[in-house]
């Protein structure tokens, strides 16, 4: 191959092309970029029918088989054909490209792939997956048109880059068409045809030269293609050629929105040009941040920016200006007269027929100076924390640009209005609204012909666009998950909503597992081994190790042991499953684990990070069998001080796997005096000392209402709900895991000061606690001291109401919500003082103890193995940038997993309550001017009660200073005062929420 290129270049037939272009940088600079491209003539067309092209060779000398089938995909109106798609089709109709019933034998020109990558990374990844050769049933081939002598096109004078790229795609189609005509040997007889023949193949006995069909929704492009003799079709007309075309049409992007609505007036203000956004951000008059929409009010968003301690409010549809929850947006502050107090009422979209007065029409033209002054005022206003109500006024802003969309798939259901009066026989196309599950997302308009089938289903939709003249974003239907409220649909919906990868592991991943499968055994004899790594392992099988876990735990990550040393000190060991023995870096298995990031625990289901074979068998520290482990061994004084720490890879044999309760019973049972029990008693004793030391140092004991749903084992139908009980043995395990994590963190930080995988928990900013402190001060005369985690812990301890034992817990729950989330980071990203884990009051911390279910631990394992010279560390864990991207991903996955877990519990609690209505104690945790939010500790659920359900809404008045809602009851006009922290009796039952289609807990007040 190399020779061919060389010869070409020496003959000088334009085999090197130059590409010269200007790159504008974000800082406003423009540089001239010159690229050289070496053109070659040996890029294959990769069609099985072609008799000329030589397929590319692999490194081992084998040839890669052609991708495109000899007898391609065909339909009634068109014979066998290959499809070429343009960039817009790939971007917008990726769901169709992935669809099982259409789009086989597709040629993706390289330029399309590149353009897709620049425009949308998620779509690029999906397209890449389609083109991966592993399971090639879709037969997608990337043709490197930019590097092929005959298809490379240079930009003409005054040609826009899009036109040039379109021309390149047409050139590719044209080349294929001519190439196949020349190279396909039509005399070839094919007998294998009937074997795999799908459709109209019975009559043909000869190979037909496959046609080339270019699919493009750009009319101009199509006209030009026709002129050049290429068959070009719009996506819709191509779909219509298929028998199931009508069904597929629903999946197509809503391309004709723009065509029909060109005359419409713009509803939203248009965005600023990029140059202005960048300039504004630079000089501080515009601010960039992530938009988050309030859970309680879809018309209220807030943007947290670098410049201000508090988020800036964005109120109303017009100011939100098509921003989505999670988008990276640019905002401009509004004049001071429009600054507002964050709304204290609940607004849900469906209940609101139309938007309330969008009155922010006054468009004043301000100079930068005025805007700067405004920006300073805003800062001042946020810093003023006086008592007057005026100081509660917050700066508001409007969105003037969206840097990055956070669009994904949304799960929802057809809105009640759209569903009304539907007959299933009606097949005309209709515009309908889809109400997403996520309350922060506005209704999405889609067009469908199958409305009848969609009503009462959970459906997945994707967003195409939000044009300036449309009140709602426009999207299209992807697929249906099933009946609303069926367990399968709801579970899948919540996994999708939280972006949890739940498909089974692909074959390439499973190939990385040990071939012995469940029969894999730890080698018997480790003395006589020739394996260098095995020699470095320490044999700890003589130690009396046991594991203590929650009931029914299958993936046992950790085990412990302790015994007395001759000098009176204790030896304590924590043994962690040696996952990295099986999960080697840079394998498909590792990649899959890294992208999943964490296992996800739902009520009735566990979505594993690693395949079952590892998680529940080979890695799991099961009792009575030998297992590889990674051990942390300490020598400790009886007072719990560490004398010496040691890390080693080891082999252990767990003597017993306890549940928390069993372990507790065994320790408490005085008749048990075997060595194992004695060891456990030592552990318990030491753990109490460790805990005390930690608490004295200021570790927080925070609380969130954790409940457990018991499911019946056969049907996995929810049985009942209980609050998780905590035993001493829970904290026994916890203390030693914390200790192991801290020891490992110190060690890997010492060895890899720039890239050690650590976990930090920032101190909460005081502004987060402002409201809670104000509420505590007014209602209870208490306060939370934010000086340090120690004072915070102490002041939390003092928040006790002698009449209400739960009050302390309640404050802890509310305080937890004011905290920042802990995060993973590579050690180079922050200075040492910033490493601090606020909640645990530890200077440095990492996650090491659960490698089966967390990827961070896998990385920590590898780094520790490198640090103790067991094996060399893979370069990707030594590269700061790579570590940063790993951390970013696992932080996101971790958060999503938590949300998914909670959503699952919420769903099941709803299901339990369906059969079990009752009166319960609840606490008011948030008061709005038109409702209250109540937490019921018994079920760990919270719910809103609207004003109408509380009493006579006419009489209601909200006193902001005391967080109290005054109103009269409906029948006897008795005055009711509802205020924060109040204990109330509520009647709890479960109803199906018509707006979200979700079964939710519904509460009503009992006096």
């Amino acid at each position, binding site marked *: 191959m190399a020779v061919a290129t060389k010869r070409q270049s020496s003959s000088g037939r334009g085999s090197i092309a130059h590409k010269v272009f200007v790159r504008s940088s974000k800082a406003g600079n423009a540089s001239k970029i010159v690229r050289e491209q070496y053109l070659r003539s040996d890029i294959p067309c990769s069609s099985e029918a072609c008799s000329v092209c030589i397929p590319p060779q692999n490194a081992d000398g084998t040839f890669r088989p052609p991708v495109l089938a000899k007898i391609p995909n065909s339909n009634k109106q068109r014979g066998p054909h290959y499809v070429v798609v343009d960039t817009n089709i790939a971007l917008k109709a990726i769901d169709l490209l992935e669809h099982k019933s259409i789009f086989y034998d597709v040629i993706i020109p390289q330029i399309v792939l590149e353009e897709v990558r620049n425009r949308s990374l998620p779509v690029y990844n999906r397209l890449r997956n389609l083109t991966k050769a592993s399971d090639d049933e879709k037969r997608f081939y990337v043709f490197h048109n930019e590097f092929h002598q005959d298809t490379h096109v*240079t930009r003409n004078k005054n040609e826009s880059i899009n036109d040039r790229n379109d021309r390149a795609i047409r050139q590719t189609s044209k080349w294929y068409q001519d190439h196949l005509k020349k190279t396909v040997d039509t005399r070839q007889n094919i007998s294998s045809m009937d074997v795999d023949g799908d459709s109209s193949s019975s009559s043909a006995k000869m190979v037909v030269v496959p046609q080339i069909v270019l699919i493009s929704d750009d009319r101009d492009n199509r006209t030009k293609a026709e002129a050049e003799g290429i068959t070009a079709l719009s996506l819709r007309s191509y779909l219509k050629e298929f028998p199931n075309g009508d069904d597929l049409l629903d999946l197509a992007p809503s391309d004709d929105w723009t065509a029909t609505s060109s005359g419409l007036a713009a509803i939203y203000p248009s965005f600023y*040009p990029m140059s202005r956004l960048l300039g504004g951000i630079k000089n501080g008059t515009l601010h960039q941040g992530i938009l988050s929409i309030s859970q309680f009010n879809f018309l209220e968003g807030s943007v947290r920016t670098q410049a201000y301690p508090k988020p800036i409010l964005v109120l109303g549809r017009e100011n939100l200006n098509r921003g989505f929850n999670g988008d990276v947006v640019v905002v401009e502050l509004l004049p001071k007269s429009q600054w507002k107090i964050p709304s204290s009422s609940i607004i849900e979209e469906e209940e609101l027929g139309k938007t309330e007065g969008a009155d922010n029409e006054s468009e004043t033209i301000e*100079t930068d100076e005025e805007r700067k002054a405004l920006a300073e005022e805003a800062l001042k206003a946020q810093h003023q924390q006086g008592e007057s109500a005026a100081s509660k006024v917050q700066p508001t802003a409007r969105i003037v640009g969206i840097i990055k969309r956070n669009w994904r798939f949304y799960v929802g259901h057809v809105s009640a209005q759209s569903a009304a009066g539907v007959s299933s026989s009606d097949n005309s196309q209709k515009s309908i609204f889809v109400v997403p599950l996520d309350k922060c997302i506005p209704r999405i308009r889609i067009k469908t012909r199958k409305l009848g089938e969609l009503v009462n289903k959970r459906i997945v939709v994707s967003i195409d666009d939000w044009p300036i003249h449309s009140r709602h974003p426009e999207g299209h239907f992807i697929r249906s998950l099933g009946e609303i409220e069926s367990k399968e649909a709801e579970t899948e919906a919540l996994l999708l909503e939280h972006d949890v990868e739940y498909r089974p592991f692909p074959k390439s991943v499973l190939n990385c597992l040990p071939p012995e499968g469940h029969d894999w055994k730890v080698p018997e004899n480790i003395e006589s081994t020739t394996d260098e790594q095995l020699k470095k392992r320490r044999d700890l099988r003589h130690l009396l190790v046991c594991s203590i876990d929650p009931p029914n735990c299958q993936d046992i990550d950790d085990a412990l042991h302790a015994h007395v040393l001759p000098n009176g000190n204790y030896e304590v060991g924590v043994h962690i499953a040696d996952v990295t023995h099986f999960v080697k870096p840079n394998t498909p298995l590792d990649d899959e684990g890294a992208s999943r990031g964490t296992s996800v625990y739902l009520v009735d289901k566990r979505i594993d990070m690693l395949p079952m074979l590892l998680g529940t068998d080979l890695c799991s520290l099961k009792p009575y069998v030998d297992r590889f482990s990674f051990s942390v061994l300490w020598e400790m004084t009886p007072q719990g001080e560490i004398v010496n720490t040691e890390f080693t890879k080891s082999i252990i044999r767990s003597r017993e796997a306890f549940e928390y309760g069993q372990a507790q019973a065994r320790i408490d049972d005085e008749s048990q005096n075997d060595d194992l029990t004695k060891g456990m008693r030592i552990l318990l004793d030491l753990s109490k000392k460790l805990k005390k030391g930690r608490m004295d140092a200021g570790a927080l004991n925070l609380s969130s209402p954790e409940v457990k749903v018991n499911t019946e084992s056969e049907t996995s139908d929810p049985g009942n709900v209980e609050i998780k009980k905590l035993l001493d043995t829970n904290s026994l395990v916890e203390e030693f895991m914390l200790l192991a994590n801290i020891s490992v963190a110190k060690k890997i930080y010492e060895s890899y000061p720039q890239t050690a995988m650590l976990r930090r928990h920032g101190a909460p900013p005081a502004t987060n606690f402002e409201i809670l402190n104000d509420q505590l001060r007014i209602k209870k005369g208490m306060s939370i001291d934010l000086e340090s985690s120690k004072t915070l812990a102490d002041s939390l301890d003092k928040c006790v109401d002698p009449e209400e034992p739960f009050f302390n817990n309640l404050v802890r729950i509310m305080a937890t919500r004011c905290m920042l989330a802990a995060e993973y980071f590579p050690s180079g990203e922050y200075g040492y003082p910033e490493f601090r884990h606020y909640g645990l009051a530890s200077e440095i911390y990492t996650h090491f103890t659960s490698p089966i279910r967390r990827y961070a631990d896998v990385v920590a394992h590898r780094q520790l193995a490198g640090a103790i010279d067991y094996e060399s560390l893979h370069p990707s864990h030594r590269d700061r940038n790579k570590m940063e991207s790993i951390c970013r991903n696992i932080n996101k996955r971790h958060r999503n997993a938590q949300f998914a877990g909670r959503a699952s519990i919420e769903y099941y609690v709803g299901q339990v309550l369906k059969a079990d209505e009752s009166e319960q104690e609840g606490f008011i945790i948030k008061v709005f001017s038109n409702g209250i939010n109540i937490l019921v500790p018994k079920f760990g659920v919270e719910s809103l009660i609207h004003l109408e359900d509380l009493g006579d809404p006419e009489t209601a008045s909200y006193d902001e200073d005391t967080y109290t809602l005054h109103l009269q009851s409906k029948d006897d006009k008795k005055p009711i005062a509802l205020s924060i922290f109040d204990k109330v009796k509520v009647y709890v039952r479960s109803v199906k929420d018509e707006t979200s289609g979700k079964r939710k807990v519904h509460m009503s007040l009992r006096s």
Partner: protein
Amino acid sequence: MKYSPAELSYLKESLKASPPIRPDARLETQLRPIEAISNILPTANGSARIRASDGGECIVGVKAKVVPTSSTSELINVDVEISGLKENNSLASTLSSIFQSTLNSSQSLRQRLKLTSRFSFKLFIDVLVLSNQSHPLGLVSLTIYLALLSTKLPLLTSSTDDSKAEEVPVFHDDWDQARPLCDIPVTQSDSSKKSDSHWTPPLILLMAVVGENIFIDPTNAEEQVASTGLFISWSNGSISAPLRTLDIGSTDPQGISSTVLSKAYSIVEQCGQEISDSLTAVYVQDEDASSSDF
């Protein structure tokens, strides 16, 4: 090259004669032949290389960067490097400062570099003198001239008025759309009509004074017998500042008289336009060749 006193005396006498006799039989207004080419550095905004007949060779590259106008007083930065000499050599720094001040004093060049009310291009002119026999000033000037002629600046696509709200400039991504720094009519047909906006970079011409005579583009031998060097700048069809004497390594330095000065003026007026036109012709030819490539 070292000459004997007798050789130097002979040379001096023949140059002092009226009419003067130059050793290579050139006229007072005649330059030595040069070999010039523009646009030799693909990644630079503009570039040129000139080889002189005595083996002197100079390469110039021009790069442009976007800067806030307020942040810098000088929009043109010239850096001269002479092969074989240290960076802080006085000859190199003298040359740098001569060109830097001459170019920066051109109001119309500043106007051309302005992008928006806040931003301008800043030009970085890197000069590399690969070898030189005689004083490199003249050679460097010709090369800078040609490099600036071939300089193109990316086309601004964002708005030019950003006094109300700051904008970060955004440019057209096509290099073919870049606008030339100096609007030289490329095709022969419209070279005749010169618009008022037409601007060419300043040329600095070095001359040697011997007795009452003055010669343009002195050779190394002529420099040795000259009483002093003199340079005059020519821009946009007329003589312009600066006019300065320069030590060109003469063995017997002396002042100059007013007759010499008026001779110098007339020499520059005679040949200034000719030189600038012939360099422009080089550029136009190169430009035609490169556009017919594709």
